[in-house]
């Protein structure tokens, strides 16, 4: 799981968007519950913005150096799949 610790070296900001209630965001909320603490402990300086808004599609955004951003929709993914997506995002060389 070493990529987690390396996250803040590549990613400048993570943003997780989801809806407070809809079921398509269930997995995203679970992902946050399970992983946020770990990610934040390993990357204390990294802003991980958890942003809720009713009725939106869950999405994971990563901002890299010099304002480059990438995002993946999380709808229909399970919690491990979201983790995999995050790992993917964390490996982009910017």
């Amino acid at each position: 799981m070493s990529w987690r610790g390396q996250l803040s070296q590549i990613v400048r900001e993570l943003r997780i968007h989801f809806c407070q209630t809809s079921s398509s965001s269930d997995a995203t909320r679970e992902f946050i519950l399970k992983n946020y603490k770990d990610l934040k402990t390993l990357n204390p300086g990294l802003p991980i913005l958890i942003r809720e808004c009713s009725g939106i599609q869950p999405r994971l955004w990563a901002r890299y150096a010099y304002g480059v951003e990438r995002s993946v929709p999380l709808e229909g993914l399970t919690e491990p799949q979201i983790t995999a997506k995050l790992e993917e995002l964390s490996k982009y060389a910017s």
Partner: protein
Amino acid sequence: MVRGSKCYKVLQARGNANFRCLISPGCKAATEAPAEGTILRRNAAPISDSGYCRSFNYAAFSSTKCSQPESCTRIPLNLMRALANRSIDVSSLGASSSVQRTPVCSGSTGLIGSGGGLQSVRHLQTLAVTPTGPKIIKADTEETIEVSVDGHSLQIPKGMTVLQACEVAGKEIPRFCYHSRLSIAGNCRMCLVEVEKTPKPVASCAMPALPGMKIKTDTPLVKKAREGVMEFLLLNHPLDCPICDQGGECDLQDQSMVFGSDRGRFTDTKRSVVDKNLGPLVKTVMTRCIHCTRCVRFASEIAGVPDLGVLGRGGSEEIGTYVENLMTSELSGNVIDICPVGALTSKPFAFTARSWELKSTESIDVSDALGSNIRIDSRGPEVMRIIPRLNEEVNEEWISDKTRFSYDGLKRQRLNEPMIRRPGGYLEPVTWRAALSAVAQAVHQVKPEEMAGVVGKLADAESIIALKDFLNKLGCENTWCEGIGANIDADVRSKYLLNTTIAGVENADVFLLIGTQVRKEAPLLNARIRKAVRNNRAKVATIGPPIDLTYDHEDLGDGTDALIQIAEGKHPFSTLLSKAQHPVVIVGAGVFERSDKDAVMAVVETIVDQAKVVRDDWNGFNVLLLEAAHAAALDLGFVPGVTAKLLSKDHLKFLYLLGADDIKPDDIPKDAFVVYQGHHGDRSAYRANVILPGAAFTEKEGTYESTEGRTQQTSPAVPSVGDARDDWKIIRALSEVVGVQLPYDSVSAVRARFLAVSPNLFRVDELEPPTVWPQSITPRSSSSKIESSPFIKAIDNFYMTNSICRASRTMAQCTSAFANLKQI
């Protein structure tokens, strides 16, 4: 309301699919006429409370149709009070909508759709959310009683007054002293109606409706009685309407059009009354007072300052302050709106404009973090006055004095052209091109780590996101928002928002206020807490600088000692808190800037945990932000990033201040290049190398998020001064000159960017409730130790908090008048 065999609203309703009859069950007014005798009643929102729109007067009392079309905008808003918040629960009437809107009278016969008064086009989309639509009052439940108004019987909830019953029936009753947010005085007698089997007309505002009552509102007797009352009121009222600032929006003037006589029978000299000095804000012309005592009741009930009172009796009755005294409330300006005549008017506005020449723009206030809804009245390029707009969930119908009176600061000290500081130290006005390329040059000479961007108190979300994107593109992560502390963590929204919501605070029964002087930081929130104290006998305890909060509270000291004791369960207050049904903990600005903030917050979290302040159905943990820009800046993640080296300010070589004025010039390294973008030549402008003039909140369409997380937008009321530009446009232009062009060219494109960063900012006029996460998901900060130092005062002088206030003469007068008084 019934004419011949058809309700005349039916005629109006044709083609308006939204219209539904509120009383008659199967009636679809748009397509078919209701049965004869059906009473049609208007929806809750647009019925005026204190008076009527003038056109309505004619319609109501002379049974002519309103000449105003539905889009009428000429009606003074302060006359329009919503039925929605009468002491009765409107939802029980079924005539409410889950979307609260400012009511706008739509003329006397205007029809309001099922969504409750719909105001501006901007609201159109959002209104579609969940309108519950008017329902029929259930006649068969126990709580309703049957009364008849002008021959039409109707069911009303028990406990209503006759006046409210008449309103339900669609009969407007003229009134002066009655006000739905104040206690009932019943002393003007204007609201007389006839009730069968009573010997004389009764004051409907003070008379409870009883089962079987037969109320008559339009008999000759009633008319005569009201005419009599009006004649008495006018006996001593001066004939100075032409020079009275209330003219055109005066209840007395309006109602005398209906009940007044064209000549007087009074031949004596009129009574004279000495004008009182209530301070630099409220002008008094006491001969105009009709002794309705609304102002007295407002001061003692809402504002919580027993400064005003009635002196004398009969012919020598006067409203005054007992002893020579100023009105020491930060809500004092509201007595101007509430006074039905011209006895209390605005001093700064006096003789500057007539109400009918003003153009009104609905907007949002930025002087504190509550986002009060305001109406900006302007004439040409000048803001003439600011008055409140009704929003039950935010400011009800009040605004603070700073909101109301600091507008004159918008005319002074304005930055109107780009400037560059020349070697001699003087600022030279230059073209935009020159100024932007000077900044670009400076940007190219420094490393990304040596740059920083600071957002000030009044910045809108558009400019914040533009600045963030711009700096990020340059590789700079060194961004922060002033006044909110350096080590703020913006990850979880529920940790920095007012989760209980402003209106929700009213339901609480125990308050713990930590490091906050609510009365100064958010006067209207303080009024809500006061309401809870009055209505629920809520207990309030404060830890922080001592302050008079206008209600009883326990002062637990100004340091962290009591806080730790409560967390450890050793303090008597901790039992009170944990026994509370709806406990509220509010953490204020006194905590943000502390070096041991994390430790303090950890203790607060322990308290919150132990007392179960956050439950499934109740979230009592609140952070009260201080400034209008804060919530949006945090939502957008305008916080120090991964590579930020915030603590060593010395290495900074390039500083971008977006209206940030609180940074001390000494803290900025001597050789740093400082760009100041803002609308006032305030503190930081003196240190700036380049000045880029921006627009003030009255001049642009900006998105702001309030401390409870409500997204709202200002609207431009006046043009920006000189060469100034919208803030986000300046940053956008600069980014192009620097060579890192931002990908948006229109304001809607900037807002589309919100969708990618914090989508809730895209939902204007909506409150996106933050998710409550279990505390265990955040890692506990282990390091810092809590200090016992006292909490600081975040605001020293209520009247001088931002660059607009500091340029305002009125605010300066308030400072000198009130500064020595302990209360404010």
